[in-house]
């Protein structure tokens, strides 16, 4: 079977500025792909085009094998969409919302009721009765929002920043819901600013920056691509952190980290080989009379990979929260 989402050379301009500047992306059937990128990278624009809400200025997008520009109605019948903010009706209860969406998917009254009951169970909200959605927690509301996107068992589900603004419990709630869907074979394309989210949910990550996909791969591949492991150490005397960093860097002999990532007494250096490196660094620091309070050898995080890929490790700016 072909890709569930196939994007080729996608271009979208606003007032002469290209928000999307030749995006290529494939999401395979049953895959979860996270579109990762800083604010303004064009993530939402790409999703809005794929869900027929926006017309592209160039390129081609096929969802479930159907061209989104030529046959938007057919695409709408095959997808579920969940936007950045919950769009369920907050005056109505969960069941009434799902019946409403069922009716708008052209199910008859009985079928809409049946489907609503199934979706309530799926979203873990069977006992909310007539309680208006505005009294729900953020996580519950999001789950209902996702359930409303599943009326026709879509082939592809688009989630635009599904956990933005949720507390950690709500976030975990949504992740569980998405994992449940994936187990049923739904293809998911989600956008996120949270690397942890991409790492936990996605089979594949595509990093979007300045309108292009600048890297794709599994989270593991992306972290491996920027060069393996990191040695993180905390020196007892913060005044000697720079000295310790220089020394450790020389001994560990990894590729240099541009800009450095030192915070106070904490020093992070790249490592070219794991074997023996901890002993070597400790001995070198010991020889120089620098006390080490803590030391960890760990793989590079997706966070570091992302910062490197988007070139934001050189800027003062951190990952936007």
């Amino acid at each position, binding site marked *: 079977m072909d890709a569930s989402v196939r994007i080729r050379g996608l271009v979208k301009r606003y007032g002469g500025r290209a928000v999307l500047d030749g995006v290529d992306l494939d999401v395979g059937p049953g895959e979860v792909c996270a579109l990762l990128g800083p604010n303004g990278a064009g993530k939402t624009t790409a999703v*809005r085009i794929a*869900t*027929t*809400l*926006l*017309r592209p200025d160039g390129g081609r997008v096929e969802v479930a094998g159907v061209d989104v520009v030529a046959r938007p*109605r057919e695409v*709408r*019948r095959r*997808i579920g*969409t969940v*936007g*950045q*903010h919950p*769009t369920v*009706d907050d*005056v*109505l209860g969960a069941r*009434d919302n799902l019946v*409403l*969406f069922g*009716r*708008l*998917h*052209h*199910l008859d009254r009985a*079928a809409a009721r049946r*489907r609503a009951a199934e979706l309530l169970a799926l979203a873990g909200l069977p006992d909310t009765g007539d309680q*208006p959605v505005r009294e729900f927690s953020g996580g519950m509301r999001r789950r209902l929002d996702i359930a*409303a996107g599943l009326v*026709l*068992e879509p082939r592809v589900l688009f989630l635009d920043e599904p956990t933005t603004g949720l507390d950690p419990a709500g976030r975990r709630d949504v992740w569980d819901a998405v994992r449940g869907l994936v187990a049923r074979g739904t293809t998911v394309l989600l956008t996120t600013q949270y690397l942890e989210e991409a790492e936990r949910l996605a089979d594949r990550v595509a990093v979007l920056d300045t309108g292009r996909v600048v890297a794709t791969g599994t989270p593991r591949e992306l972290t491996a691509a920027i060069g393996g492991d990191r040695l993180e150490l905390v020196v007892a005397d913060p005044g000697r952190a720079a000295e310790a960093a220089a020394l450790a860097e020389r001994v560990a002999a990894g590729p240099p980290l541009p800009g450095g990532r030192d915070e106070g007494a904490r020093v992070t250096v790249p490592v070219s080989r794991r074997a023996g490196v901890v002993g070597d660094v400790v001995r070198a620091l010991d020889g120089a009379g620098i006390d080490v309070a803590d030391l960890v050898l760990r793989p590079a995080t997706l966070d570091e990979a992302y910062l490197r890929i988007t070139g934001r490790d050189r800027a003062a700016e951190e990952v936007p929260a």
Partner: protein
Amino acid sequence: MTAVGEGTAGRLRWAVADALTVAGRDVAHWRRQPAGLLATLLFPVLLMVTFVYLLGGGIPVPGGSYRDFMVPGMLALVMLFGLEGTMTAVVTDTQRGVTDRFRALPMAPSAVVTGRCLADLAASVAGLAVVALAGLAVGWRPDPGPGLLGAAALLLLLRVGFLWVGIWLGLLTRDPALVTAVQVLVWPFAFLSNVFVPVSSMPAWLGTLAEWNPVAATVTAVRELTGVPVPDGGWATGHAALLAVAWPVLLTVVFAALAVRRWQGLSR
């Protein structure tokens, strides 16, 4: 679980069914939150009572009965106030992403707007009924007969015109501040008409302006149809029935076209 077939007849059927479903959402809101609807329905009654009993005594009108003069004006104002309701509903749905959610559904795209029209017209019919009953209670005595039906039809026609203005304004912005601005600006628009006072009491140039107000045309026509003496005026007063049809048709044509453009612009 497949959706039912296409074809022109099928599409039309779904367009109607979807519009009813969308309008049904408003009805469900009224059922669950009756306070908002009640406030909308009762505010004009309050205003009418204020004018009839508190202020109207000082306003001389032809024929002498201020309540007979005032009630047709109040009925037309209910149509004007409906504009705010339409606009608020459109802004709220766009701002919360509900509009986009609907646009990505396999439903008839027109239903988002036609559903809004149906719901708002239903609310306006209720609004007319409440003000008319309250008017009867304070002593309004219209001529019974087919003139009343004609008056109701003209009033609802005016509502259709304002409905499209409201939809266009609602699509123009996501900023609730503009809703507030419109809520304020309807007042000078309402006062610059023959709703509360005869235009003959105004300076001549203002009187002419007030006479040409779309609301004024409908008010004069409704007064004529319900047997209320109509004060003398210029051409616009003499041809009120014509204008009471022409204005809403013009508003509908212009603002429906603008609204459709704006709607298509959402995909740009």
